[in-house]
């Protein structure tokens, strides 16, 4: 098992694992998050081809559009 930090919490994962797969195991879809991998933004079209490594730090930033109505 490898360890990846997702939103500051350590998750144990089995590699190889793509960013898309990690997003889905965190109950999200690629359309509803922006992703920082080790502090760098990853374009959405690169989620499927971005492989994660042991020790990676991932920030899943969720779209939040409410406010007025």
């Amino acid at each position: 098992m490898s360890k990846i930090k997702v939103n500051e919490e350590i998750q144990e994962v089995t590699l190889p694992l793509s960013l898309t797969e990690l997003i889905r195991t965190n109950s999200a879809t690629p359309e509803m998050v922006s992703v920082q991998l080790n502090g760098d933004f990853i374009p959405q079209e690169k989620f499927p081809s971005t492989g994660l490594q042991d020790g990676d730090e991932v920030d899943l930033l969720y779209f939040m559009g409410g406010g007025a109505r």
Partner: protein
Amino acid sequence: MDFTPEQVERYSRHILLQDVGVEGQERIHSGKILVIGAGGLGAPVLLYLAAAGVGTIGVIDGDTVDLSNLQRQVIHFTPDVGKAKVLSAKEKISLINPDVKVITYHDLFTAQNAFDLIEDYDFIVDGTDSFPVKFLINDACVMKGKPFSHGGILRFDGQTMTHLPGTACYRCVFHSPPPPDAVPTCSQAGVLGAIAGMLGTIQAAETLKFLTGAGTLLTNKLLSFNAKNMSFRTVKLHKNQHCPVCGEHPVITELAEGEQAFCEIKNRKSQA
């Protein structure tokens, strides 16, 4: 300017603050703030900015007060149902603090009026509920070098960031609006009323910090919280060199209305 004895008393708790003082209160008094949306977020922002003595508050909203708004839009009262939100907001602001000059725009924030609206203001507060408008506010502010506070809420969650020229913008983080229906809005998925107050008061505090120069703003940071377990998180960000509006090779050079915005406008008109 010289404060009257009544003003010194009214603002005494600000004046007592070492980081604000008379000088900071004067800056608040000469500040011009535009609040976009007089709803869940706009309500607490407007109430606190009014109480704080912000000299000029602009408020734009095309909606009227609905009964379903009152669970969280605390600037609107039961007798206001059916009234234009900007008028309802203006009435409360004037009652809280007659020092404040209120400029109302009973209109939607669009690609056509965005530049004209933000031009006269020092700081803009996003209290809107649609992604296309949030991106429009970002693009207009980035292009004109205007600082602004982004805010978003949903269910039990909230997020906010502050942009100053040269720091990470909303598009640095969220490249473009999500596809329609990928992410629900509050009117679709609900929101705990107090969440609007939690997030809106953070935006109001950022606005007052901006005006007074006190402390450190939420620039290059995204603050998000979940009220179910009351966890707060601040994620460090940096300007994204691939950002479509403020990156090294910007592809967005003029304002455009998103497709979703047209749907929303259409829906609003059909609701009216």
